[in-house]
């Protein structure tokens, strides 16, 4: 099967089981959303799938490759990872940040970027609409601009699997829509996209498929229409909500009831 298949994944940290026997599939060309309350284990699961955190058991197979058994550098040329918000004390230009994505392709002896590197970086800046920000200093940019550069950095890795941990956190609505539309474009270009999100309406609007994580286990998975039901919201999030339909797209639209 094309895409990412995670089977019986468990993550243990500090003697506590954070993720237990998780199975899910993220198809190639799709945006798969990972949702669930705080502490459900979304971040740990994503890091473990990429080998950034030890997996206590289970496998993560991507296009027939065992991600956990791959050499790191090779894995970094297949998968890229974007965190919630990348902050740095180093004074880097936009182009410098995106160039970091070329590290897995560069040899230790190389003193300057190759023409391939330069080309990939220019293209990645273009893809995220940040072509004019190459020489701007990263720490002077807005949160949305910084996040787009992080995604450009991930794109410069020319990944077939793109994993993003709450990339829209702390962004204004314009920037959020912008980032999620970018992810749709990457999927349309053939990438497998796995993204964790807090905003369920955003998840409903932009994801082809959702995986609901609750207390370290998969509670449900499937298309947003099938997953986002009032019953599930009550059981997983302890909230009451009505599920409406988006007037233009027909996708689920949640209206939450006040807990009072």
């Amino acid at each position, binding site marked *: 099967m094309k895409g990412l298949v995670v089977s019986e994944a468990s993550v243990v940290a500090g003697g506590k089981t954070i993720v237990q026997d998780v199975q899910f599939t993220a198809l190639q060309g799709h945006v798969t959303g990972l949702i669930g309350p705080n502490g459900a284990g979304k971040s740990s699961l994503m890091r473990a799938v990429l080998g*950034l955190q030890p997996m206590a058991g289970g496998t993560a197979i991507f296009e027939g490759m065992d991600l956990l058994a791959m050499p790191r550098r090779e894995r970094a040329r297949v998968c890229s990872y974007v965190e919630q918000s990348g902050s740095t*004390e*180093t004074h880097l230009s936009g182009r410098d*940040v995106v160039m*970091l994505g070329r*590290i897995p392709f560069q040899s230790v002896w190389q*003193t300057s970027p190759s023409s391939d590197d330069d080309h990939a970086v220019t293209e990645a800046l273009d893809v995220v609409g940040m072509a004019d920000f190459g020489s701007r200093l990263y720490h002077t940019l807005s949160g949305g601009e910084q996040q787009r550069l*992080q995604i450009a950095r991930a794109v410069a890795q020319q990944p077939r699997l793109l994993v993003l941990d709450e990339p829209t956190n702390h962004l204004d609505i314009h920037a959020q829509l912008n980032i999620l539309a970018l992810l749709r474009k990457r999927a349309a270009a053939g990438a497998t996209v796995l993204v964790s999100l807090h905003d369920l309406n955003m998840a409903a609007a932009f994801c082809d498929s959702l995986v609901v994580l609750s207390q370290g286990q998969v509670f449900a998975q499937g298309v947003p229409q099938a997953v986002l039901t009032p019953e599930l919201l009550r059981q997983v999030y302890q909230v009451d909500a009505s599920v409406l339909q988006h007037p233009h797209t027909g996708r689920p639209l949640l209206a939450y009831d006040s807990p009072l």
Partner: protein
Amino acid sequence: MSGKLLLASSLGLLLLATMILAVTFGPADIAGSEVLQVVLHHLGIVQDTPVSRLRDAIIWELRVPRVLVAAGIGAGLALCGSVMQALTRNPLADPYLLGLSAGASLGAVLFLLLGAALLMPIGAFVGSGIAMALTLFVTQALGGATPVRAVLAGISVSALASAATSFLIFWSATGDSYREILSWLMGSLSGALWSEALIVLAAILFVGLPVLLSGRSLDAFAFGDNAAASLGVDVGRLRWTLLGATALLTGVLVSIGGAIGFIGLIVPHVARLASGSRHRVLLPVSMLLGAIVMVWSDTAARALFAPRELPVGIVTALIGAPVFILVLLRYRRMT
């Protein structure tokens, strides 16, 4: 990219000119051309020189090794500072501020007083390694690495190591050796020998140059450990290898020149202004700049109040402390 190459090669030329000029400073009036002739003669490139035996000895036996030691120590400390700042994501990290230098001093003094002067570099390495481990441990115990916590931990480790060193000296050193050890502790290159120059250069060659190759992986740390790991860097291995190399290099340098402050802290910041933050360029530029600054500092230390000589540590502190305050202001939102 050719701009960076130009920067590095002009700094290289500047270092060469600095070293030749530094050799001419001193009580005997020596010209730059004589320095060149003597050096070329001893390297076997030129057969005969018109330079007298005495002047030859002054140049080759007294001044050249001292300038080489200064250059090597400056380059090494600046490299250690750059690497530590990148690895710990802490713009205030350097061997002196995080306690490595004080630990190295303690180890070196201990071995010296035990009568194993030849093993001083090893004692200094062990001392700086233990001090670094202690600083990192205290930083973690304070609740995780922030620049200020790391510096506070470094200050406490420094204080402890310095107290132990003072106690050792007070307890066992007498008369002349007392004065000699004190001057060395403050950082002094007085009476540097060829053997010491060779030790410093070997440390730069075998520890420093391999570290230069890690430049690209250090870039990956800009956004933290997870980001680095996702770029294919073996974070744990790289961190311990480089911190070990830093401790080793600091130990060797301190055992030769004493605890010289501020070079490792300040030079990387100045180098960053010129070369940008990419470590593949920053590390060599830091080393060249560190060597130049150190050679001039040492020349000032021995020439300013000649025939009296200042410990070079005083000169680097006089220049470095005000620059340190500027660095603090630049990063004030972190402190």
